[in-house]
């Protein structure tokens, strides 16, 4: 067997970080093999790809040592973010850039470009198209096409589908399978069900980058199923396992994380008890509702199977009503809803294609874009004074990109913005902040800069700030996008706990299973109109 890529006794440490990654990893990948590397966030999977390809240390200096290393003779690398992989503005320019660097004569360029596009399933008509007009899935395929023009023996792919919606994910995997049939492929991924049938070998790393499992997919899967769950990997069947375990969860569960014994898969820990300060006034209790959370019951308990709390406010009206509601982006009307209402304690999932107006709806409800028509929240009409729009009281919006809404330089300040109140002492504030950090599994390090968190942690922080603002209506734009399984379940469960406590959740999502398992109703948007409202009976 010829080895395409290999390393012996690899050690690596990022400057300023305390831990040594890999701790003597030895790995060899034969030519033609399709290898998938999995592991928890922070296990160094991407870093390993960068070492094997030579990006570390050639492009970025990171201290590393190894016994021996063999890098591929020729290689290409496809990254995660479709928006940051291109240096030119048009498709043909981008592909030509690769060919120029390979000193391909000009007259040979166009046929090669067409061939590469065909290999990834893109139409040759796209040659003149500006890259920004392509969908995210198409962009990733273009990235793959430009890599193919390097004629690489080995192709590295670093979570190519992480930032793609279901349609884009399907596109990129189809292209990968088609175009990389005969090459060595080393792949890092979290969402593996679409690609696992094509893979020859799974390599599993733990949090320190040490080798935990290595072998054929079936064998690895059978022997290490618990690790798959623990590491939050989206393996085939993960939702079914989750649903099964949720049903099995006892009603009077223990507050906080359960560490006793081999409790299965519960991806993520239950949120710990919410201190009274974070609870809203409980609405009129409907029959069958769990006891008032104020007396210290764990929030996680009421999740599965409890009857939803009162659907209407004290005076019988729905929490939020829209009539002839329009939302504008610039001067164009992007959304028009004739009639819709949301009850208190509902979980509305907003779905639809890209561009259907989902994000616009959230922005409109938060009054961050101009609106027209009737919008009544808690019985009060939200006025339409053009230059004096304010975010209505009780509404909190969580953006898709959590970094966009951080306003402070430390975790403490970020949460204190919403938690502080004149009648609260400094110690009380500090306590509340710590409690909130713990609840969302954020590091107990209030001085840390928000940008110095992992993506999952940033996401949780943005939800935490929304909660801290004591809002009763939470608007979330794709909160689980790009997250591993564990974080996804943790966030959804937290939202469910909040919902059981009386808050209302309106969430834009692409995740079908999240909708079916957690939402109480689904609003399907199409081309700016509300096509359908579907009530969901949750299992």
């Amino acid at each position, binding site marked *: 067997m010829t080895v395409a890529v290999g390393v012996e006794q690899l050690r690596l*440490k*990022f*400057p300023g970080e305390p831990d*040594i990654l890999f701790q003597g990893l030895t790995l060899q990948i034969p030519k033609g093999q399709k290898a998938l590397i999995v592991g928890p966030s922070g296990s160094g999977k991407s870093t390993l790809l960068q070492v094997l390809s030579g990006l570390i*240390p050639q492009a970025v*200096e990171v*201290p590393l*040592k190894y016994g021996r290393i063999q890098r591929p003779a020729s290689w290409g690398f496809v990254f995660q973010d479709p928006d940051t992989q291109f240096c030119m503005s048009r498709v043909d320019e981008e592909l030509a850039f690769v060919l120029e660097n390979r000193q391909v004569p000009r007259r040979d360029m166009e046929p090669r470009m067409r061939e590469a596009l065909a290999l990834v399933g893109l139409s040759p008509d796209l040659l003149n198209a500006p890259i920004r007009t392509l969908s995210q899935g198409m962009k990733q395929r273009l990235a793959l096409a430009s890599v193919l023009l390097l004629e690489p023996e080995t192709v590295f792919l670093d979570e190519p589908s992480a930032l793609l919606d279901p349609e884009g994910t399907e596109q990129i995997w189809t292209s990968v399978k088609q175009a990389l049939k005969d090459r060595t492929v080393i792949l890092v991924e979290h969402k593996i069900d679409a690609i696992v049938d094509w893979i020859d070998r799974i390599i599993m790393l733990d949090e320190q980058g040490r080798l935990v499992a290595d072998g054929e997919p079936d064998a690895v899967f059978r022997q290490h199923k618990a690790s798959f769950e623990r590491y939050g990997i989206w393996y085939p069947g993960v939702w079914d396992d989750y649903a099964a375990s949720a049903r099995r969860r006892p009603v009077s569960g223990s507050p906080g994380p359960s560490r006793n014994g081999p409790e299965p898969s519960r991806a993520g820990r239950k949120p710990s008890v919410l201190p009274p300060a974070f609870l809203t006034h409980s609405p009129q209790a409907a029959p069958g509702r769990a006891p008032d959370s104020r007396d210290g019951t764990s929030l996680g308990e009421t999740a599965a199977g409890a009857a939803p709390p009162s659907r209407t406010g004290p005076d019988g009206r729905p929490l939020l009503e829209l009539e002839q509601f329009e939302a504008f982006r610039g001067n164009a009307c992007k959304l028009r809803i004739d009639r819709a209402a949301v009850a208190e304690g509902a979980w509305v999932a907003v779905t639809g294609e890209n561009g259907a107006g989902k994000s616009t709806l959230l922005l409109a409800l938060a009054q961050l874009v101009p609106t027209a028509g009737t919008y009544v929240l808690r019985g009060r009409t939200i006025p339409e004074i053009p230059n004096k729009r304010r975010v209505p009281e009780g509404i909190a919006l969580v953006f898709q990109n959590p970094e966009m809404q951080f306003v402070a330089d430390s975790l403490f300040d970020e949460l204190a913005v919403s938690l502080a109140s004149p009648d609260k002492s400094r110690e009380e504030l500090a306590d509340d902040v710590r409690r909130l950090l713990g609840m969302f599994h954020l590091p107990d390090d209030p001085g840390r800069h928000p940008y110095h968190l992992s993506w999952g942690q940033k996401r949780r922080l943005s939800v935490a700030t929304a909660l801290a603002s004591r809002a009763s209506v939470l608007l979330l734009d794709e909160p689980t996008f790009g997250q591993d399984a564990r974080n996804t379940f943790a966030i959804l469960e937290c939202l469910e706990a909040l919902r059981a406590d009386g808050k209302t959740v309106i969430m834009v999502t692409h995740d079908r299973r999240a909708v079916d398992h957690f939402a109480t109703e689904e609003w399907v948007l199409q081309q700016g109109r509300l096509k359908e409202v579907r009530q969901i009976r949750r299992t």
Partner: protein
Amino acid sequence: MKQWKFTDVLVTIMVGIVFGVIMKFWDDFYTFIKPILPTLRQLFYGMWFMVGPFAFLLMRKPGTALLASVAGAGLSAFIGHGVQVLVYGFVQGLAAELLFAAFRYKRHNILVAGLAGVMSCLGSFLLDLYYGYADLEAWALAVKYGLRTISAFVFTGVFAYYIVKALEATKVTSLIRPVSPEEYEKLD
């Protein structure tokens, strides 16, 4: 330059370009206040010296100050200010670079950065003499360039230093600074 990686080149040029854009706006502002504060406006001149020292404080590698300054000047020249701007950028960047070199590239505090700015200011003075912009009486020269020197220190020392400090808090700098040999030893 053998320690330079691809990312180093990119980051340096990016810094240069960002400042090139800022300098364009600053130029408009500078022109605008000319009738109002013809002499005192030298206190704002320091912005043009900021690129090089900022890049060095950020990346701490030899050559960044010069390259960033030239890149920034290159952008300004490209937008339409002509080749002369490029000469200024080169000389000012070189002056800052030489000062950092005099400290063996090991000092990264406000004082050193400010001094680098003062050196750039000196460079700009020499060029002004050459191009005929310093055709003034001795006392007027002292006022004009004295103010400019103060401005240089404030912009390249104080401002640049604190902006880089703020960036350090976000940890983006850990990957672009040179790695000390101790870090490698920890791997044994």
